[in-house]
């Protein structure tokens, strides 16, 4: 049976842990506010981009000179999965959920006889995929030193993707990230970016205006497509950042509450054993007095 001192130490330790989780929760909450604002600020750009690109693409798809970034290589053999995760743990199921989705997709593709390659953005995803798919991971992008996510970071990833695509390293590229829905709900999402998929709903309201292009469509597309990839990566990273903080916040909230429950239980057992000792001592004194 643990002594009273042991019990006291244990309660102190749990309290210290609770303080840490509480602090982490509050830090996550304040970071979340900023990350969420950034994710929302980036939405108009991505939406406009999608719309404009969709408009041009519809006119071009099927034409002979359609760029490969838009039309695809015509094959579906090699798939590149870009798995975006966080650099840090302690954020509940956030990282595992993204990795699980990517792993399921990889399993399905391999079962179909396709080839799968990975590109990991963020250390956590790499660590989880390394064991199973170590040799298929082409590259890992480390964003640990990054404090505020800038467009340049996404741009360098985008350039990497375009370069790999140009070298013929893959046919289809899919982005895995977690869409931020609310603090308690983050949805792991897969989005195909090469060749891009345009939603059918936009197709309906687009056909109105006929545009003039300057320079011509071909040059614009050549510029726009790599840019679009960077934009999509950027959006995914921002959504991810917000999701990560949200997930961490709720995970740490749970941890704090659990620590509270634990402290209560430990205090109870501490008080019990204290009372038991007092009673025991009293009995000893009384029985000693009676024996006289």
């Amino acid at each position: 049976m643990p002594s009273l001192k042991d019990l006291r130490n244990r309660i102190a330790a749990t309290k210290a842990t609770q303080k840490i989780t509480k602090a982490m929760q509050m830090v996550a909450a304040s970071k979340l506010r900023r990350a969420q604002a950034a994710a929302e600020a980036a939405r108009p750009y991505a939406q406009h981009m999608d719309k404009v690109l969709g408009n041009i693409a519809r006119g071009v798809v099927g034409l002979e000179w359609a760029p490969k970034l838009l039309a695809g290589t015509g094959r579906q053999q090699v798939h590149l999965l870009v798995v975006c995760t966080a650099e840090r743990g302690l954020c509940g199921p956030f990282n595992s959920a993204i990795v699980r989705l990517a792993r399921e997709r990889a399993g399905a593709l391999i079962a179909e006889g396709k080839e799968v390659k990975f590109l990991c953005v963020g250390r956590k995803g790499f660590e989880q995929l390394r064991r199973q798919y170590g040799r298929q991971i082409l590259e890992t992008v480390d964003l640990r030193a990054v404090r505020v996510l800038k467009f340049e970071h996404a741009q360098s990833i985008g350039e990497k993707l375009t370069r790999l695509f140009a070298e013929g390293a893959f046919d289809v590229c899919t982005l895995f990230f977690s869409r931020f829905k609310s603090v308690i709900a983050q949805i792991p999402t897969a989005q195909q970016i090469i060749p891009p998929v345009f939603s059918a709903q936009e197709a309906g309201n687009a056909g109105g205006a006929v545009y003039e292009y300057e320079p011509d469509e071909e040059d614009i597309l050549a510029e726009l497509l790599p840019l679009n990839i960077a934009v999509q990566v950027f959006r995914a990273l921002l959504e991810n950042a917000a999701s990560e903080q949200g997930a961490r916040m709720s995970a740490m909230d749970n941890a704090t509450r659990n620590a509270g429950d634990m402290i209560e239980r430990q205090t109870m057992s501490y008080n019990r054993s204290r009372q038991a000792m007092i009673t025991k001592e009293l009995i000893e004194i009384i029985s000693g007095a009676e024996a006289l």
Partner: protein
Amino acid sequence: MDNFHFDLVSPERLVFSGEVEHVVVPGSEGQFGVLAHHAPFLSMLRPGILSILGPGQPRRIVVGGGFAEVAPEGLTVLAELAVPVEEFDRSQLLQEIKDTEEDLVDAKNDALRDKLRRRLDQLNRLELALGERGTRA
């Protein structure tokens, strides 16, 4: 004169959104002005200064690459970079000019050299435009 709606968006945020009378945009094939009821039009941008003109405070904004879309609803400029002239860091631009010059020396084929030369020209022109503003102010 009629007003129209103008959005200036960078990947990081919505820089400007509101009703304006006249906007001058640095297109890749030359500057162009947009007034209300402009024909639908899509153009790439070169690095340069975008001016919002008309009554009220005229604003000048440095934009990097990207594109402008004129639709019946108004003008939308998607710029990779959009910073008001007052906040723009010129040393950064000078650094980029230097980098591009170095790249030009290292460039291997004509197509790349051509592209870099055009970019350098655009950057220099932007630098010049910023310089003019500096002496006037």
